[in-house]
Every structure is written in C-alpha cells, then in structure tokens.
C-alpha cells in the first residue's frame, strides 16, 4: 500500500476547542484559518472533532453512490472507538498536498480504490485522534493513559468520563503519537459489520445537495449546444431569435460550442432551441457506426502489438488441429456505451469580491479539474476553490483525464464576464450525444481444449481505443493497459497463450465505464471458456475449477455454485449461466438463472460470491454488487450508442438509450467471503461477470451464441 502517514505537531491546529488531525506533508504557505469553538474549521485535516461532540471526516473521495463516505467514517470510527451516531462526513477541498489518492499521486477517486487506498491511512488518523484524546484525559484526571478506556464515543478512567467533544480542546494541545497502534482484527467493532449508510436519510428526503441544487444569489443558468459530429466547430450562427427570448442575458461562443446564459433554466433551454447554428465538419469524425465497426472488426482480424506471450500458441494450435481437436474461433463486438448518470454534468462558478473563484462540481479527479479551471480562467490555482459536491452517479463519467467539462464550464463562465454566478448544466441530450463513451472493442479468439478440459492453445487479439493516450495518465505504453486488463495474465491455466492488441484511433472521445476493460475482456474469456467446456461435455463449474490458478478465485466460484445449487434439476425453460472474474483486486463469481419470455431474456435471479479482502461494511458491499449487476445487465441487454450519417449520434435520451428498469431487475443474493487481506475494490467488480453469466445461460437455453452486444438492442419496448 505504501501509505506514508507521519502525523506531527504541525498537522494539528491548536487552541480552538477543536481537535484537528492532518497529514504532515510539506505544505508551503499553509494557512491557519481562524477558528471559533462554535465553528470549528479544518482545511488541513481528515478528522475534526467539535465541542458539540460530532466527529467529521473530510472525505478525499467523492461520494456518488459507492459508499466511500460511509466507508471512511467506518475506518475512523473503528480506531477512534466512536459512536456511529456522532460520525459526520463532508467532502475535503481540492488540495493534492493533503488529499492525494495514495495510489494515484493526485487527488482523485476511481479504479475502485477508495477503501484500498485509505484503509491504513484513515485507521491511523483515527488511532492518532484516539491516543490524543486518551492523553488529554489522562492529564486532566491525573491518571496513566493505560488506565483509560474508550468505547462508544466515551472516554473513561476510574470514576471519570468525558465525551470526545469535552476533550477536544485539551486534546488539540497534545503531541500526536509517532506511530499509533492499530487494532487487531479480533477487536473490530465497526469494520466488517453492517452500519447504516451515513447519507441515506438526506437522500430519502430530498435534502441531499447536488451541484444542480445550488442557487447562488443573482445566478445565471447556462446551457450549451454542441457540434453534431465529434470534433466539429461552429461555422456561423444566427442568434437573433434566441436573444429575443425573455430572460436571455447573453449568448457566447466557446471552443466547445455555443452557450445561452439566462435568468432561469427554461429561458436558456427555449433560447437554445431557437439558435440557428451552422457547423463545420472540418477535421470532425464523420464516419458512421457501420464504418467504425468495420474498422475495429478488421483490426482484430490482424495480428496486433504483442501484449502477452507464454509458450507458443501458434504451434500448439497447429498441433491440436493436426490431432483433430476442435478449434474454437470467435469474434466479439462491444459497442459504444454511454454512462448516462442520473445527474447530467453540471457546475456552478462564482467570483468572490476579492477576485477569487469558487467552483462547485462533482469533481472526481480534483487535481486535473482544478488545474484545468485555472488554465482556462487564466488564474492562479490558489485563487480557485474547487468544492467537490455529491454527484448523481458517475460510473467513470466524472473521471475525465481531459477535464473537458471543467474546461467548458470555465470557458463559458469566462465568456460571461464572470460578473454573476453561473450554473452550467448539460441536458440529457448533451449527455447521451456528448461522447466519452466506453469505446468500441472487438476481439478475435482462436483456442482449443482437449477432452480432459486442458487448454491446448489460446490466441487472442483485441482492438479498442486507448483511454489514456494523450492524457496525463498516458504511460507511453504501446498497448493501453486498460484494453487488456483481466486477460493479460489469464487466470486459467493456458501454457501456450498469446495476446495482441490494436489501439485504434478515431475521433469519438472514449472514457472508462464501470469496470473499464473488464467490461469486454471478462465477457470474452468467460463465454469462450464456457463454450469450450460445453463442447467437450464438461461441467461449467468443475471444468473451470480445474483450470483456475488462484485459490481465492476458486473459492468464490465454489461458493456461488453452492449458493445457486448449481446441479439441481431445473425447469427446462430455465438455465443457469456462470462466470468468474477478478477485477480491481476483487474476486467475483456469479450465477444467473435465465429464461426467455416473450422473445426476450428474463433474468430471474443472480447469485454472487465476492472476496474483496477485509470487508469494511458488508451492507455497502452487497449494495455495490446489486448495483454493479444491474448496471452491467442493462448495458449488455439493451445499450448501444450508434453514429448515423455524418457521424451524428443517433440516440438522445432514455427512450432510445435504455436503462434497466425495476421489472427487469433480478433477485440478487450475495455472499461475502471473509478475509484478512487488505480491502480491494467493490464499486466495479460486480459488473464484469453478469454479461457472460447471462450469455452462457442463454446459449445453454437455445444454442445461440451472443458474441455481438447488445443482446437485445434498441428495439426493446419500454414497459412490462
């Protein structure tokens, strides 16, 4: 994990009645902000204990549903021996010197790393606070620290007792311990136990505040029109009619398109409809989906850049063919997918009297958004406060290495003159047509299995867009690691294996989408293995068990087969499909029970066994598996973004970009494997296995191989 945690005196802001803990990192010009006991304030800290006895965690991870607020609070509460009811969470400000993701080096959330990267760091923060509270109590009561206990948020010694709040001021003057002692697993009271989520109440009563909910005094609302083809630019515009709409304040052009600024949302939307816009396609991506699809299909048919090689797959396959072994050849197609977060992208920008600027947005990679805002506004980053907001979903969408949305918002704000606050929001149409899709991916596989179930040879080529090329995440690798994750080192025994890859360059901006490359690599591996086992008359579970290398992977597969009672006698109209896949360090196996109803798949139930290391909050883990399955299921069944004539996106809203709905959601049963290993990801690993589990069940139902996604597509009517 490599966590560097080194609390020292200067991380503690003293004399305020508030105990504040922070990381001692080289902070230049650190401001110690004025504090009062009624208004404790802690910009340089993870933990703030106020005299009112609340413990507030400053979350360096954005909360958009995956539960990091609850998770980080759990870690701190554990080591602090707090009472769960006193825990509070807020987003930390954007400040890479204090809040960097220890796995990224920048402040950001993603790759299902929130718990993995914070496990030791946040526990140490909690343990440090506890030690200081104990020392304060010891001094106050004239006792040895070893004679003092803490439980449920109360510090006790002999006949004395005090709340954290009562000790906060004294504790803030205590020297923090150099190396706080962390609890042993057997002493855990919070970690591994269900706790209510910290944000459920406000999200059930409409009081959770998202970016779109901010109404700053005198604020304008801005909406944008974008070129219909990716890379297009504005050639000319007639905005006379639009400007006549009551409430319109200005219409500005920015590199991204045209924005209407108005007194209210409806005026902005109405005026946008009245803009007469002529776009230039010079340099734009104007190819349609058929042309783009062929590009990727053709690429996968040719040898790519070698990404992995063990033994000699070509020789092995030739020998197998010679022996009369069946050679499985298959091509797979995965379409563009939009994330379609419930809250369309938005940001609020406001200039303060001193010329500094506040930006509120669902920032997922704060360091990149912050730098981009500064560059576009032409300001020093220290004069911009980037305030991370709760966001209505992300699934990867807010983690933009190009910070394109921050750039557009800043450009519009700047063009507006910055005299009034601006809320810039995309509409659903902007979102669905806006690019940054899970890119097209194609695979071609040649492989052989013998009668005993050994893999004799495996050749695979993948073609997709690079997600990182030309971004700050570009490692310069010839093959983007995200294209081949999950299959670079096959988790099945295959002594003769070769993987090659093509990075296809097209003008549609790509982005990671929940579970990233695993969205296609798991699908290919798990459907191929299943087909090969079936061809040899071998059992889909025991056949896999024989080939799996990792005991933890075997354990989740065995567990899920047991949960689903895999070998039971089934109604012939229903079949089970299985898949297992490790992603983001987490092992996940699923079984889906599927039938066909009115010509379309009906997924009745999904069983899932998951090993994500030490479980932190099982309630959140189950929720993420449920959600990860639902998210993957909708996409695999229905979704595809297509480009029509001139490269214009065909889809525009939820009527033609389908989301899974409640009647399509299967029952879900989750088993969490207990583990002493460090926690790994949970936001994404539930997604990869569901597609192949369903595809395998469907094939076993009617023999149809689903190698081209989506399985049903856009013709499926909405409704029961």
């Amino acid at each position, binding site marked *: 994990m490599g966590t560097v945690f080194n609390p020292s005196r200067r991380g503690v802001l003293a004399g305020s009645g508030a105990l504040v803990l922070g990381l001692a990192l080289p902070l230049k010009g650190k401001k110690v902000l004025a504090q009062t006991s009624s208004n404790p304030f802690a910009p340089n800290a993870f933990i703030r204990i106020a005299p009112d006895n609340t413990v507030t965690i400053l979350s360096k991870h954005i909360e958009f*549903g995956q*539960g990091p607020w609850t998770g980080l609070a759990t870690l701190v509460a554990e080591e602090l021996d707090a009472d769960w009811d006193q825990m509070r969470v807020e987003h930390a400000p954007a400040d890479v010197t204090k809040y960097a993701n220890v796995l990224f080096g920048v402040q950001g959330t993603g790759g299902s790393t929130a718990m993995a990267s914070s496990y030791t760091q946040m526990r140490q923060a909690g343990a440090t606070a506890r030690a200081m509270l104990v020392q304060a109590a010891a001094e106050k009561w004239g006792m040895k620290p070893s004679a003092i206990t803490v439980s449920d948020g109360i510090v006790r010694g002999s006949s004395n007792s005090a709340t954290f709040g009562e000790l906060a001021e004294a504790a803030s003057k205590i020297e923090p311990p150099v190396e706080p002692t962390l609890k042993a697993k057997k002493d855990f009271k919070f970690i591994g136990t269900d706790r*209510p*989520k910290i*944000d*459920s*109440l*406000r*999200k*059930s*009563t*409409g009081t*959770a*505040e*998202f970016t*779109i909910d901010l*109404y700053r005094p005198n604020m304008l609302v801005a909406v944008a029109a974008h070129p219909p083809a990716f890379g297009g630019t504005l050639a000319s515009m007639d905005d006379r009619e639009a400007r006549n709409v*009551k409430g319109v304040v200005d219409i500005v052009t920015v590199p991204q398109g045209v924005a209407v600024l108005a007194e*209210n*949302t*409806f*005026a902005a*939307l*109405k005026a946008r409809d009245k803009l007469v816009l002529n776009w230039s396609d010079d340099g734009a991506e104007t190819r349609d989906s058929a042309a783009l699809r062929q590009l990727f299909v053709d690429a996968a048919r040719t040898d790519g850049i070698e990404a992995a090689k063990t033994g000699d797959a070509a020789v092995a396959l030739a020998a197998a063919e010679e022996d009369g072994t069946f050679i499985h050849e298959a091509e797979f197609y995965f379409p563009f997918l939009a994330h*379609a*977060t*419930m*809250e*369309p992208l938005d940001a609020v920008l406001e200039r303060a009297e001193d010329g500094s600027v506040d930006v509120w947005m669902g920032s997922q990679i704060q360091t990149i958004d912050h730098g981009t805002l500064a560059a576009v506004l032409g300001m020093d980053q220290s004069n911009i406060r980037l305030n991370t907001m*709760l*966001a*209505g*979903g*992300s*699934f990867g969408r807010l983690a933009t290495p190009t910070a394109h949305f921050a750039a557009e918002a800043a450009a519009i704000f700047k063009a507006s003159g910055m005299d009034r606050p601006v809320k810039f*929001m995309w*509409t*659903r*149409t902007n979102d669905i047509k806006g690019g940054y899709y899970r890119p097209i991916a194609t695979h071609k596989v040649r492989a052989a299995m013998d009668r005993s179930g050994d893999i004799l040879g495996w050749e695979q080529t993948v073609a997709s867009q690079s997600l990182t090329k030309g971004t700050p995440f570009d490692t310069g690798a010839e093959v983007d690691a995200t294209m081949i994750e999950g299959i670079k080192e096959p988790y099945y025994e295959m002594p003769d294996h070769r993987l090659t890859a093509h990075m296809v360059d097209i003008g549609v901006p790509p982005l990671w989408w929940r579970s990233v490359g695993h969205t296609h690599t798991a699908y290919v591996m798990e459907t191929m293995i299943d087909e090969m086992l079936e061809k040899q008359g071998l059992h889909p579970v025991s056949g896999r068990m024989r080939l799996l290398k990792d005991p933890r992977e075997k354990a989740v597969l065995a567990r899920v087969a047991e949960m689903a009672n895999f070998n039971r006698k089934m109604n012939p109209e229903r079949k089970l499909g299985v898949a297992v896949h490790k992603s983001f360090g987490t092992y996940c196996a699923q079984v889906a029970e599927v039938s066909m109803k009115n010509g379309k798949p009906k997924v009745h139930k999904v069983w899932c066994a998951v090993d994500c290391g030490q479980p932190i909050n099982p*309630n959140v883990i189950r*929720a993420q598996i*449920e*959600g990860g*399955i*639902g*998210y993957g299921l*909708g996409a695999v069944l229905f979704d595809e973004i297509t480009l029509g004539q001139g490269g214009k996106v065909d889809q525009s*809203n*939820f*009527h033609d970009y389908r*989301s*899974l*709905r*409640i*009647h399509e*959601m299967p*029952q879900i049963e989750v088993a969490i494997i207990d583990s002493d290993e460090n926690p790994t990801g949970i936001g994404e690993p539930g997604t990869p296995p569901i597609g192949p589990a369903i595809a395998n069940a469907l094939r076993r139902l009617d023999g149809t191989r689903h190698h081209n996604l989506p399985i049903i597509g856009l013709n499926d009517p*909405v*409704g*029961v």
Partner: protein
Amino acid sequence: MAIELTVNGKSVKTDVDPDTPLLWVIRDEMKLTGTKFGCGMAQCGACTVHVNGETRRSCVTPVKFMEGSEVTTIEGLEGKEASAVQKAWTGIDVPQCGYCQSGQVMSAVALLKKVPNPSDEDIDTAMNGNICRCATYVRIRQAIKNAAKEV
C-alpha cells in the same frame, strides 16, 4: 398572466412564461430542490411530484395547466404512507448516489396510498417509470414491501 397553484399547501402565484415546465417553477422559482431534473421528456421519473394526489412528471407539465392544482413535492410529503416509505428507505439504505430517489419515493408513496399491499406486479407497474442508474431496484422493491407492512 399570473398562474395560481398550491405547492405543499401554500398558495403560489407565478408570472413565469406559461410554457415553463412545473419542474423549473418548483426549482428555479421556489428553490425546492428535492425534485430533480433527469431527462426533460418523462422518461426517467426523477422529477416526479404529486398533482392532486396523482404522480406527475413535472418536467413535461407546463405550469399553465396547473392553475388551481395542488402540487406536492418531496419537501411537502406527509402522512403515514410517506413516513413509512422514508423510514423503509433509510432502514435498508436504498439510496446509492441518491439523485433519483426523490422521484422513487414520490412514486412509492402514491402507490401505497392506492394499493396498501402491493404485489410485485403492482410495484413493477407503479415504479417502472422511475429509472435508477445505480440499480437500487432490489432494495426499492423490498423497501416498498417493508413500508406496506408498516402502514
């Protein structure tokens, strides 16, 4: 032309463009932000409110048709169904990102007012206009059943 309606029991007079969807009157004019914008074409249900006791997608409802109507948003929910639903929602931690949940709660409350003990089919019919991209549907279904027992 001023339009008069009742929102959460309070009489409201508005002189906005009469074509303005009720959603933007609720949000932009009244600053009641629990009701969310999701699609603008009655596809996702994030904007669901009650109009005269019936669920309504406020994003496609021009305010000019609301003259004299009684509108309830999540901020104005009351009654035993509402408290049972919200208690059930928090009880099993339905929300993930939470953005769609105001709409989900409004649809669930309306369902329970009409059908005190809804079957799975009743739930599907009442709730399938409300999209949740986090796919919290398993818990939505369970929470509605829990709330029904409570009422």
